[in-house]
């Protein structure tokens, strides 16, 4: 297991390094940063001066090494539009996004796991079919549209929730529901198939045979084993939510890093885009490793292969 974990971590470091190269060059190749900094109407001398002042006249590899070295110490440079440094900006915005993604994940686990269990206990019953139908139909609805429709229904017509902002927990209800909705079907499906498999295992029959009641068998013996891959999936889903938050945050005008990313992309605020790209990618890499390690810990076959 230790061997597997070390190999997996090494791979993750390589991926992270590659991703940092992509995050840096992707934004760089697109346009001249000196012109972006100086403004469209700047004179050639101004641009040349800025190029020198920001070190943009150095070879791009040197610039990359410099950027990465500073980034590792938490220095992502200055934003073109905000008075704060990029690091301060991200640090103030990140909690909103993490809170939103966490709320969405908890919601989808709270709905997905019980429904998955019920569906597995009564395969092909009406409740199983209903859950699957909602899942299939739901995947077809664009998330931003769903957010807007919830906003119209609960925010404008029923006036139960605020329609935008991130001040109180009430503001998080609609965005979290929207975000969580899309992670519920995969969680439900995995719980269902995991439970179906576990319920046929010999030790479950043994548990019943020695006279245990159905509920303890279900929860202590079956669900405990069926739910570990779900935890691994949940960590991957958490990553998807960080990415999905870009769309949802801009629908609900929540000041998270998703909204910050969108604003910065529209304004070509290069330092901020690079920082967010790198940070979100690193979250992804970390969550994938976590999920892989969980799965490997559960299933020795993965470790050996």
């Amino acid at each position, binding site marked *: 297991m230790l061997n597997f974990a070390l190999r997996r971590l090494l*791979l993750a470091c*390589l*991926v*992270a390094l*590659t*991703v940092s190269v*992509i995050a840096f060059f*992707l*934004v760089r190749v*697109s*346009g001249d940063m000196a012109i972006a900094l100086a403004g469209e109407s700047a004179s050639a001398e101004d641009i040349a001066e800025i190029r020198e002042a920001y070190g943009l006249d150095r070879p791009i590899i040197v610039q990359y090494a410099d950027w990465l070295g500073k980034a590792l110490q938490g220095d992502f440079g200055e934003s073109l539009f905000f008075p704060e440094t990029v690091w301060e900006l991200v640090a103030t915005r990140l909690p909103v996004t993490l809170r939103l993604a966490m709320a969405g994940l908890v919601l989808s686990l709270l709905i997905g796991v019980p429904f998955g269990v019920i569906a597995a206990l009564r395969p092909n019953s009406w409740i199983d079919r209903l859950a699957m139908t909602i899942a*299939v*139909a739901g*995947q*077809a*609805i*664009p*998330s*931003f*549209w769903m957010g*807007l*429709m919830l*906003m*119209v229904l609960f925010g*404008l017509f029923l006036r139960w929730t605020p329609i935008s902002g991130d001040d109180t927990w009430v503001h998080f209800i609609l965005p979290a529901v929207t975000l969580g909705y899309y992670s519920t079907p995969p969680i439900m499906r995995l719980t269902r198939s995991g439970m179906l498999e576990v319920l046929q295992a010999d030790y479950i029959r043994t548990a019943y045979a020695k006279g245990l009641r159905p509920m303890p068998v279900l929860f202590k013996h079956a669900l405990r084993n069926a739910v570990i891959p779900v935890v691994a999936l949940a960590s991957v889903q958490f*990553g*998807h939510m*960080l*990415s*999905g938050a*870009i*769309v949802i945050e*801009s629908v609900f005008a929540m000041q998270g890093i998703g909204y910050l*990313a*969108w604003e910065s*992309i*529209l304004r*070509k605020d290069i330092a901020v*885009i690079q920082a*967010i*790209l790198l940070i*979100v*990618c690193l979250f*992804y*890499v970390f969550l*994938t490793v976590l999920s892989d390690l969980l799965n490997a810990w559960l299933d020795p076959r993965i470790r050996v292969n």
Partner: protein
Amino acid sequence: MTDATASRSIDTPGGPLDPARALGPSPTARFFRRMRGHTSVMFGGSVLLLIIAVAVFAPLIAPHDPYEQDLFKRLLPPFWMEGANPAHLLGTDNLGRDYLSRLIYGAQISLMIGICTAVLSGIIGTALGVTAGYFGGKVDAVITFIITTRLSMPIVLVALAIVALVGGSLEAVILVLGLLLWDRYAVVMRSATQQARSMDYVSAARAIGCPTWRIVLSEIMPNVINNLIVIATFEIAHAILLEAALSFLGLGVQPPAPSWGLMIAEGKEFLLFDPWVITIPGIALSILVLAVNMLGDGIRDVSAPENRS
């Protein structure tokens, strides 16, 4: 043997020793028969065909020019509401453009992006997946690393950043999504190829000195093509949703094109008094994506090995 005796021979088509009769319908024929009997294939397929027909014949069907503005007829409500204008069945947008016509032309954009993206990413993903699965070893390790790297980049964020830099347009969205959505093809084709490669007929082909490209094209591809079709349908749906999201965020297809995502973005400020402005394109998007997904689900059910009799 003369023609006369040949025609009386017992192994003529339909005769008692006709191999076709002994084996029953061909796998392809059985596949299509099962497709016809499958509800979600039939439903998803019919709806999709209908939308494709609408998109193809848009100039004939659309009652108005989708770009023609009439500021005296702004935000006319659709037919089920009071004050509707019979000339504009689904009303007009805030520039007085006919909503039904824009919706009809919007189908072209969604389908074009969905299909072109799925083809582009399909070519990239299949090439990577088949190469990794067929050659294994170091080649496999390198391609697996590329796949892992791609999977650790959030699509929406990366797509937004690239589109912002190269400028939003139909072609840019297709190119960016095509270069990003190949991961599922690569993963599935890699393992499907690994399985197919260990088959005896592949070893046989190798033994008689078949060139690699021919083994891949004529021995491996026919056996993994089902997977390819299923993933392609899901990626079409995925691309359509992503285009809508990008256009909604202002970084996809640019105005005045009638992209459904863009129509929702433009309707957002009228959400309070005219929620139908965002409801209509949203429903159109959901129906299209649902139809494509149902077709994909159905084809997967039908072509799954455990369903083969």
